[in-house]
């Protein structure tokens, strides 16, 4: 079963960077995929990577992360100023961040406005699983078939 957990920006708004990362990693470590409203700051993203690396074990091999947000190209000065003001007031709420454990999410492919999430076969991947290797069975003594002997009349 695949679980997605939504984290609204209001939940992490008042947290410090370390606390944000701890919260997100805490959810990811429960083998859930985080859908977070908004995005982390670039410094927080590196902090997330560093923290992930520090916590890597046999059971936790890392995360897959992806952020999509509206591209702001060729904005006029006033519009740019307006956007920056909004950002300063309400934070980086635009866009969405997806963080999944690498034990569940094999790969996240991002094209500018599209995200493809490839999960591992046991979590419902549509990709065909690699053919299983034939395991040689331990040699067991075969019982000889019973031969029915017809009696000649």
């Amino acid at each position, binding site marked *: 079963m695949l679980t997605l957990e939504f984290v609204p920006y209001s939940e992490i708004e008042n947290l410090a960077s370390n606390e944000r990362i701890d919260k997100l990693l805490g959810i990811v470590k429960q083998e859930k995929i985080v859908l977070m409203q908004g995005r982390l*700051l*670039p*410094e927080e993203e590196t902090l997330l990577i560093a923290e992930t690396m520090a916590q890597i074990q046999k059971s936790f091999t890392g995360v897959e992360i992806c952020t999509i947000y509206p591209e702001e190209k060729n904005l006029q000065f006033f519009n740019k100023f307006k956007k920056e003001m909004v950002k300063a007031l309400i934070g980086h709420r635009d866009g969405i961040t997806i963080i999944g454990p690498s034990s569940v999410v094999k790969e996240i492919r991002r094209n500018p406005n599209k995200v493809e999430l490839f999960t591992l076969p046991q979590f419902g991947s549509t990709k065909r699983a690699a053919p299983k290797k034939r395991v040689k069975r331990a040699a067991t003594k075969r019982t000889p078939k019973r031969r029915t002997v017809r009696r000649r009349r």
Partner: protein
Amino acid sequence: MATKKTTRRSTTKKKRAPAKKRATRKRAQAAPPKATKAKSKAKPLMVKFLRNFLRRMINSMFAKKKDIKLGIYGPPNAGKTTLANRICQDWIGERMGSVSKIPHETRAIQVKEQVTIKYDNKEMTFNIVDTPGIATKIDYEDFMGYKMKNKQAKDRAKEATKGVIEAIKWLDDVDVCLVVLDSTENPYSQVNVTIIGNLAARNIPVLVVANKTDLRKSNIRRVENAFPQYDVVGMSAHKGKNMEEFYESLFRLI
């Protein structure tokens, strides 16, 4: 006579002292102290700003930049060490580190100091910082696919995680950065975006290197489209293809 001389000297000293200080920065603006005092009061902010700006410009043009820390960042197996080796071989005739097809071959920061690069009558000295590839996941089982033993793979994974943390710490210490990407891969990966976003937030000049252009699958345009606000150079560090353009872009960046 002697007294006169001394008095003259003393007066000239008094007059020249502030001018000398300035002369080291900008000789042309040296002026007698009384006049400057009178002017400085009336000097508007704009003039001050312009003077500082000109001084900075002149300094940046003529002052010798010493030992620029050139960081080489990117995802694993993009060709960072291959590029570092190529630069070092071109200018000091030495290699910097070992290269392998197995990811995370570089697992610790490597610094090569005093690499002087000459291009178009210009000369600059760099301290080249080759960093381990930045990744968000490291699984020791992936290394076992490269015919590694269990313990060997686990050790490699452990060292690789430490290397990534170290590479992130070094982000604050570099002056200029090359972000090396594999031009055959999708450039929209979050690691690339994170590295470039961080460098931009720190105001560090970035040159994006689309490596492995000698391969058929290579697509420089895709890299250019992904990072339109940065200068992108397509090259092959392995075969030394397009190195001229690379050095040109590097000097333009600084």
